């Protein structure tokens, strides 16, 4: 069997092909990396008006039962007990070493929780979480394959979505959600979240309806289809971590500037707590930073980083930020120098290029209503 035959497709695969998308293998799926307009145009459309992403490859696990909150609190680092019904938060799953198995969103519904995980980690996360269910009184269901996820992102997203729903979108605050009808499709989870820094919504619903919802949202002619390429430049300009580039199971939340996701005081027990307490006491040896390079030098994942002439890790993420109009990237630096203004070098094809640590986000002007 060839690799291609094992790749999955979202319910919108044919729609992407018809739009002329470039399809690439990503996390086990054939996904649109860009449409004919190109990454830069799609990026600017999201910053200035509105873009629509198919991110149905993402995984969704539903946790149900009297012990659901205690269980998710045990396997994630953020404090699920703090979530109101209709609220979501960003979190991480750590292992006993305190390093990140995945980052995720946790949604609190009336009678269950939904965990949204990275597509590339669905199987790994399932095994990691399920093996720690122990005596918690709850059950978990993997609904990834039948759940569509569309991200409508950009300052015009609320007005676009309002044409297709009677739900009062103004009442949905950042990182809150409701369930309602969109484009005639019932039981859509309408979440004011995203991975772009712009205002917008993520819509979760039964995947059979994906072509109809996509067509409705695109019908006004003012929404650009946007691919994974633009999703990457948008998130990197916001300094948002990408699993596999910026974070993985060798990185703790403290090292990745995600200390705000670790609730040591509120939670006496959760997977990874002991290791995280130990690192906090001993001191965090390195931190993820954002940096810029002089124009015409593009940092890429894996390029070597040098501090005072010594190699000090590799570039995690890198691109040219279309909005900031500069080469931008992320890497780990020793904690004592991991602050804006620090100078170091990135090796690009044999040349040491001067890099400067920048404050994150690179693009502070996003329309997301925090």
């Amino acid at each position, binding site marked *: 069997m060839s690799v291609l035959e094992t790749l999955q497709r979202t319910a919108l695969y044919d729609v992407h092909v018809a739009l002329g998308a*470039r399809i690439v293998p990503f996390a086990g799926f054939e996904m649109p990396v860009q449409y004919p307009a*190109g990454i830069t145009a799609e990026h600017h459309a999201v910053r200035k008006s509105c873009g629509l992403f198919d991110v149905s490859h993402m995984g969704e696990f539903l946790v149900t039962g009297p012990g659901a909150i205690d269980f998710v609190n045990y396997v994630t680092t953020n404090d699920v007990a703090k979530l109101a019904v209709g609220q979501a938060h960003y979190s991480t799953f750590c292992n006993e070493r305190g390093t990140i198995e995945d980052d995720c969103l946790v949604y609190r519904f009336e009678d269950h929780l939904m965990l949204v995980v990275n597509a590339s980690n669905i199987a790994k996360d399932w095994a990691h979480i399920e093996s720690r269910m122990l005596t918690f009184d709850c059950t978990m269901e993997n609904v990834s394959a039948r759940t569509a996820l569309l991200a409508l992102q950009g300052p015009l997203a609320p007005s676009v979505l309002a044409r297709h729903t009677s739900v009062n979108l103004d009442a949905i605050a950042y990182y809150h959600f409701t369930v309602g009808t969109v484009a005639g499709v019932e039981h859509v989870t309408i979440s004011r979240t995203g991975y772009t820094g712009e205002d917008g919504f993520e819509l979760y619903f039964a995947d059979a309806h994906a072509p109809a919802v996509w067509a409705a949202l695109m019908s006004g002619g003012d929404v650009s289809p946007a691919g994974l*390429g633009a999703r990457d*430049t948008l998130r990197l300009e916001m300094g948002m971590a990408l699993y596999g580039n910026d974070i993985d199971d060798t990185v703790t939340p403290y090292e990745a500037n995600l200390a705000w996701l670790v609730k040591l005081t509120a939670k006496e027990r959760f997977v990874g707590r002991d290791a995280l307490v130990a690192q906090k006491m001993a001191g965090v040896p390195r931190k993820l930073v954002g940096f810029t390079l002089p*124009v*015409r030098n593009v940092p*890429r994942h894996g390029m070597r980083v040098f501090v005072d002439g010594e190699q000090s890790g590799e570039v995690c993420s890198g*691109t*040219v930020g279309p909005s900031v109009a500069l080469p931008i990237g992320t890497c780990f630096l020793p904690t004592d120098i991991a602050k804006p203004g620090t100078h170091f070098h990135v090796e690009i094809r044999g040349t040491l290029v001067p890099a400067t640590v920048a404050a994150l986000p690179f693009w502070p002007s996003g329309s997301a209503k925090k």
Partner: protein
Amino acid sequence: MSQIPANLQYTKDHEYVAGAADADIVTIGITDFAQGELGDIVYLDLPKVGSTFAEHAVFGTIEAVKAVSELFSPLAGEVVEVNARLDGEPALVNSDPFGDGWMIRMKVADTNARAALMTADAYKALLGE
């Protein structure tokens, strides 16, 4: 399907060579297929006039949003002109690869070497189009 002008010659690395078969000076760039594969081009690192390259030597790099690629000289020769517009308008390579998006003009060391380049039909076959 990408454009493959019939009157040009091609390499398997997706460069094209334009110019009459016996011309001393040829124009070199990348094909429509190549620019499509690279996506939005953000800058090019091109050689200086007077630089000389062996056949298949790296004469520059091309940076797109998602990827970087090296440029291989289809022929041996000396660079006699560089497309200065690409410095400020790298996207010309995306919008007009065979026209305003040309990269360098080269004085070829041996015009007979042109015979080894691919025809449009051969390049079309390479792309499976």
